[in-house]
């Protein structure tokens, strides 16, 4: 490591020790700090990314940071810096191997709910369809902000040496603000408005926000909650009555998938490096799955989705509910596959009725048929 207190550097002895007003001056930063100097990170073709500057000691994420201050990782830090009261002081508490990549991706793929949605193309819709869109938007406006509130609750407790994880969570908060914005705007924009808000969703949100640890919270939010919402957004193309809603769902889908990717890899990192945490995660998901089932089968959610899937009230029974069941199957299959990827297999433990949903555990466990399909 090259440090700035290299003996060959000028000593700057001639600099004043007092300001013109008589205040003492400190030139220690110029005379030699014990930090790495001259690393010259090289910009990648798209610019200077967080991955590009993760070089030398600046790229080393400590397993257990020695301090609890907001001093930047890699700086020459005084011994008497203030303790900020962080409680998430182990790398396994917050880290994911894809954190830097996801941060850059999030920054590069920000969009505007004001500018990037073709609001001018909204069309008058049949009464039942407009009501269903507005009911779904009411629900999504309500639930999306939990994915902002939850990281906000924990971020100030995260050790500052894990700044990349905190930066990524900042992007998640911005994403979710935009999601709440876009669904609120859609509810109001086409002559409808916000409709019913009932107790079911609130129970789920409370379960998430009250998680005892950040890793439990991440399992409930990123893996379970956002994973399910991600599949609703994926399904958006089928339930959206016009190109406006299709565009909304597609843009939100991209953001949501990033959050799920962080959560999946965070849980994997946590379990790989601290196997004891697995039971903690399982306990959270035992409860979370049940609450989510209650949420998913809540009358307002299931009926609005079914009506949109049917294209209107007329075919809600013969078309809407069967398609909704398919969506539920996809949601749980994706969720269980992500659990496998995260290293916390739920197949032997989940109370989700796999038989009833027609989910084959072997397909989830292996997931190999997909790759074989690509190779066939």
């Amino acid at each position, binding site marked *: 490591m090259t440090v700035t207190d290299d003996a060959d550097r000028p000593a700057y002895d001639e600099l004043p020790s007092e300001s013109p007003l008589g205040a003492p001056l400190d030139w220690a930063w110029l005379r030699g700090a014990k930090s790495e100097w001259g690393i010259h990170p090289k910009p990648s073709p798209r610019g200077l990314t967080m991955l590009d500057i993760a070089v030398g000691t600046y790229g080393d994420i400590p397993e257990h940071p020695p301090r609890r201050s907001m001093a930047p990782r890699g700086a020459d830090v005084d011994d008497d810096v203030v303790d900020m009261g962080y409680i998430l002081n182990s790398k396994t508490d917050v880290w994911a191997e894809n954190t830097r990549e996801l941060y850059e991706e999030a920054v590069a*793929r920000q969009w505007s709910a004001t500018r990037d949605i073709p609001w001018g193309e909204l069309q008058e819709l049949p009464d039942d369809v407009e009501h269903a869109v507005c009911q779904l938007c009411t629900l999504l406006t309500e639930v999306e902000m939990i994915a902002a509130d939850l990281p906000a609750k924990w971020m100030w407790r995260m050790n500052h040496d894990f700044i990349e994880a905190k930066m990524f969570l900042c992007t998640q908060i911005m994403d979710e603000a935009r999601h709440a914005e876009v669904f609120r705007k859609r509810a109001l924009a086409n002559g409808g408005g916000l409709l019913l808000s009932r107790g079911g969703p609130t129970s789920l949100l409370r379960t998430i926000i009250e998680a005892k640890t950040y890793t439990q919270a991440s399992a409930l939010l990123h893996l379970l909650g956002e994973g399910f919402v991600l599949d609703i957004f994926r399904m958006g*193309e089928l339930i959206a009555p016009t190109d406006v809603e299709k565009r909304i769902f*597609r843009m939100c889908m991209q953001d949501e*998938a990033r959050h799920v990717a962080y959560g999946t890899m965070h849980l994997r990192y946590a379990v790989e490096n601290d196997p004891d945490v697995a039971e903690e995660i399982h306990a959270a998901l035992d409860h979370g799955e049940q609450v989510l089932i209650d949420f998913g089968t809540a009358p307002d959610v299931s009926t609005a989705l079914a009506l949109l899937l049917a294209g209107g009230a007329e075919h809600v029974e013969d078309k809407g509910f069967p398609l909704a069941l398919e969506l539920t199957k996809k949601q749980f299959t994706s969720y269980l596959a992500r659990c496998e990827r995260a290293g916390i297999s739920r197949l032997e433990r989940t109370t989700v009725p796999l038989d009833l949903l027609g989910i084959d555990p072997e397909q989830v466990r292996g997931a190999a048929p997909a790759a074989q399909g690509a190779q066939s």
Partner: protein
Amino acid sequence: MSPAIDTVAFFDALSDEMNASTERLRIVGDADMTAVVVMHRPGGDLRVRLVFEGLICAGVAEVGAEEAGHADFALVGDLADWQGMFDDIVANGRATGLWTINSLALLGDRISCQGDDPMGLDKFSRFNQTLQEFFDGAARIAVAA
């Protein structure tokens, strides 16, 4: 006239079109993914690997079955269904209705998104609009041709 869709030349043309329109892609943002398009057709499948980096398609290559398995995900369908998707794009200037790649993959009965890694599969969602922009380029190369 643009090349037949089951040729590497066609995907090269889509790549060139995308790479000449990076300003249009800027609103969608950077993407990093490797996808494989698999077209089932008489006489043997065509597998084309597409590498996306930043705002461009950085690589187009025909690959074998083993290499195809290393991609983040594969989009697999019969040639006729791929033709249907591109016909819709050319007719409308962009994919519409159930012909968007997201809708097709979601239903999975004509073109499916496959992969053995949930993280790779999730890239299909994370970078979906980039992929759609790439395919929508078929409308512009058809016009150009």
